[in-house]
């Protein structure tokens, strides 16, 4: 069983064919192929688009057409691409997004998710898509996580971000700051703590994860002096988690929570109340290697934390470091 699990590939959806997806995948594959244990990868996308990108970049593994059941080539020279349909060349012109490309990007994600849910892949990594062009292609698509949650019939999920040192989960994501205080509830904070703890235990083999929970207000409200969400919501959620035998603590003052004692954070992972609270810390500490992980899915899904970057697509200037980190994390989280 273990060997079969090891043999299963990580699937990577190619992302929007007009973006930097193909470029960062190929550059990441080139780097990973030089490492000790190169992962097995299958790109779900378009073989011609991948080849065009490889020709532009040079010195990367050669994309070859791959079909389910076939052996997966070693990354040292070649990278497997499973084509979903066949794009017309205009759909993979760098920096020129199209309805055809948006539609394809959507289908790559769906196929990668199906393969992972069937157990044919050990984990999935998603290259960046354009929400706008997927929606223009007629698919309802609020975001990767929402689509994957729907396909997996998961109601409860959260976004997690991982840097080289810092891991954190968000209670709320893309809402305006004005809506954040009302969006918080004991239940939501508690669920986030539990999903994060489960991920650390089950996927990363952290036996007894210590979870630091941030407050909402400056200095975590300083005992109700400026804000009571800490007392009404966050404190009770931490209590509930502790009753469920999770080593959660806080509410921590948001600005000092990420301070280090003898070079280490005080927690294995943190829960942030809103998007920027977590991401400002993450990007200040670790801007180039951040990985986005969806918690709560029945499989491992990661992605680099950048967008399609249509403005630099085809220029061979995109950094693959976040994609490398995303593949690497997907491998580690699906090894346990």
């Amino acid at each position, binding site marked *: 069983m273990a060997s079969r699990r090891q043999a299963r590939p990580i699937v990577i959806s190619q992302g929007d064919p007009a973006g930097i997806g193909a470029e960062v995948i190929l550059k990441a594959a080139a780097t990973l192929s030089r490492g000790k244990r190169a992962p097995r990868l299958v790109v779900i996308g378009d073989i011609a688009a991948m080849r065009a990108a490889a020709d532009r970049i040079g010195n990367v593994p050669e994309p070859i057409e791959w079909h389910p059941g076939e052996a997966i080539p070693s990354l040292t020279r070649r990278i497997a691409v499973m084509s979903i349909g066949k794009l017309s060349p205009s759909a993979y012109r760098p920096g020129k997004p199209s309805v055809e490309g948006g539609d394809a990007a959507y289908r790559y994600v769906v196929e990668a998710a199906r393969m992972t849910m069937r157990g044919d892949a050990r984990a999935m990594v998603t290259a960046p898509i354009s929400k706008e062009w997927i929606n223009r292609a007629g698919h309802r698509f609020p975001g990767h996580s929402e689509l994957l949650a729907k396909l997996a019939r998961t109601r409860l999920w959260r976004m997690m971000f991982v840097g080289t040192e810092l891991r954190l989960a968000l209670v709320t*994501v893309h809402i305006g700051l004005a809506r954040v205080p009302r969006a918080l509830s004991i239940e939501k904070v508690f669920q986030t703590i539990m999903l994060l703890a489960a991920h650390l235990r089950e996927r990363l083999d952290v036996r007894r994860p210590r979870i630091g929970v941030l407050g909402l207000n400056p200095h975590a409200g300083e005992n109700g002096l*400026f804000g009571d969400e800490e007392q009404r919501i966050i404190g009770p959620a931490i209590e509930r988690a502790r009753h469920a035998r999770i080593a959660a603590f806080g509410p921590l003052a948001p600005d000092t929570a990420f301070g280090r004692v003898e070079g280490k954070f005080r927690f294995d992972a943190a829960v942030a109340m809103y998007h920027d609270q977590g991401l400002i810390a993450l990007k200040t*500490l670790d801007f180039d290697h951040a990985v986005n992980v969806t918690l709560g899915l029945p499989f491992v899904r990661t992605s680099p934390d950048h967008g399609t970057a249509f403005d630099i697509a085809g220029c061979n200037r995109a950094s693959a470091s976040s994609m490398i980190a995303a593949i690497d994390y997907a491998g580690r989280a699906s090894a346990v």
Partner: protein
Amino acid sequence: MATDTRKRPIIATMIGDPAGVGPEVSAKAIATGEPQQLSRPILIGDTRAIEAAIAKSKLGIAIQPIRSIDEARFEERTVVVLDTGELHAGDYQTGEPSAAAGRAVVRWIRLADRLAEARAIDGWIMGPVDSTSLKLAGEIESIDDLQPPNTWMFRISGPLRVAPITEHIRIRDVPQTVTKEAVLNLIRLVDSTMRRWGIAAPRIGVAGLNPHAMFEEDKERIAPAVNEAKQAGINCRGPISPDSIFRMGLDGHFDAIVSMYHDQGQIALKSAAFEGACTIYLGLHFVRLSVPHGTAMDIAGQGRAQHLSMLAAMKTAALLAAGGGFLKEFR
């Protein structure tokens, strides 16, 4: 050298709570001789506490006590001390907060402000004060009361410099304080103050309020303020996604960042955590700065306190008061 001396700004350092590490870090910083190269430094506070710190750490410097600034001689290996004389032996214990120390600190703060208002000094630094001492003295209810009215905090940590619109208020109250007027006002204040400090055309980044700076307040309040500032000739950009702007600041893209609320900048500043961070008040005609660390009562009087933050504060205050820009070295 003698002509130089007269040009160098007079920078006072109020030692902070005499029972904490303030006297020690102030004396140690002066003993390095570095502040004297940029300024004419004086200390304001309890002479006895400063004497004890000099003796404990064997700093080998003498004290010149003065009653008024014009008595100061600024000689080598000598520290000029202005003491209001209200603290007597036994009024406080080293390492412990007290009402007496709290009262003295408030008198020293008022004295320093008066001297700066009268332009007898060019700026001053607030050493670490103790909120318990101040509360025991009944002088203030919260540490926020020490902030002069109509001023904004400008925090520095390495290459990152941030001024937020508001300080300690509830997150739920933040969005309503982000108005076009408030943003524009702060951009202008940052720009004019930095020009006075010696930065010719400061590059100012303006943070958005919301994720990716893509919500209503970002488009309808912050963007118009930035546009108006640009039309007035200010070199500013924004609103920029809050999760990117501080990284850009660390990478040297801006001379200063205007942020929309306390934690936005503080999370970045404290996560980056450079040695020698400090806070300056914007909105005063003189430089007023404070050190970021506390009184560290647990190690007070032992000669173990680290003075690099205080030294950086003294050098920064001297440079800014003379219009010489920011300290270039940081770790």
